[in-house]
């Protein structure tokens, strides 16, 4: 689970997280920290970076078929294989 910290938090391993930072934890651990009120769940595609608290998250999204650029061969006429005539 990706979470964004809203409060400064030091975990049991001594790792310190500042407000705005995005980190990935296991689902159970993330849920536990959300319940503690130190972070909120964010899009799983968000990159785990040290953002400023009000910064927009960098999120990788898949390109849908509508948005995908057409293949250079998509509108080309079908290939025709000419057979050699026997002389």
């Amino acid at each position, binding site marked *: *689970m990706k979470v964004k910290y809203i409060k400064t938090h030091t*975990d*049991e*391993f*001594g*790792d310190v*997280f500042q407000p705005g*930072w*995005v*980190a*990935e*934890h*296991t*689902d*159970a*651990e*993330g849920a536990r920290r959300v319940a503690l009120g130190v972070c909120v769940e964010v899009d799983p595609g968000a*990159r*785990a*970076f*040290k*953002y400023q608290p009000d910064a927009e998250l960098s999120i990788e999204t898949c390109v849908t078929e509508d948005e995908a650029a057409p293949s250079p061969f998509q509108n080309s006429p079908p290939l025709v294989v000419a057979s050699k005539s026997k002389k």
Partner: protein
Amino acid sequence: MAQTVGTVLAKNMKMYFGATAITCQVDVSLSGSSNLFETTCKDSGANASFLPGTKSWTASGSANFADDATLGFNTATTGIFDKWDDQASIAIVFQTAATGDTKWSGTAYVSSWTLNSSGNDEAVTYDFELQGTGPLSMAIIS
């Protein structure tokens, strides 16, 4: 996310330092070995015989480098460089994020690392090798 059904997708299996996944991992692996000592003697038949001695394990990985990674190569105190420089141990876990899946955990030291800036249109990456110390435990993520 509940226990994974069927083959686990590599994208979901990551290395964690403490409770946090390394940012932008590319490849990670975990391997174990046993030092087998030979017990073949003149009383043996035609077959060599061995017994297991000490067990050991290592972990390795690579990731894309980002200066502002939450847990990356240059992260103060917890990153690969500082762990190597301080000769400090790392509590590592190799797991998916899903409750009910299997995890492997233990303590390791950084035995080597490489920071790579290869070519022109490539991401800067780093590789690392970790030498496990003590047992490697297998458990269920709860």
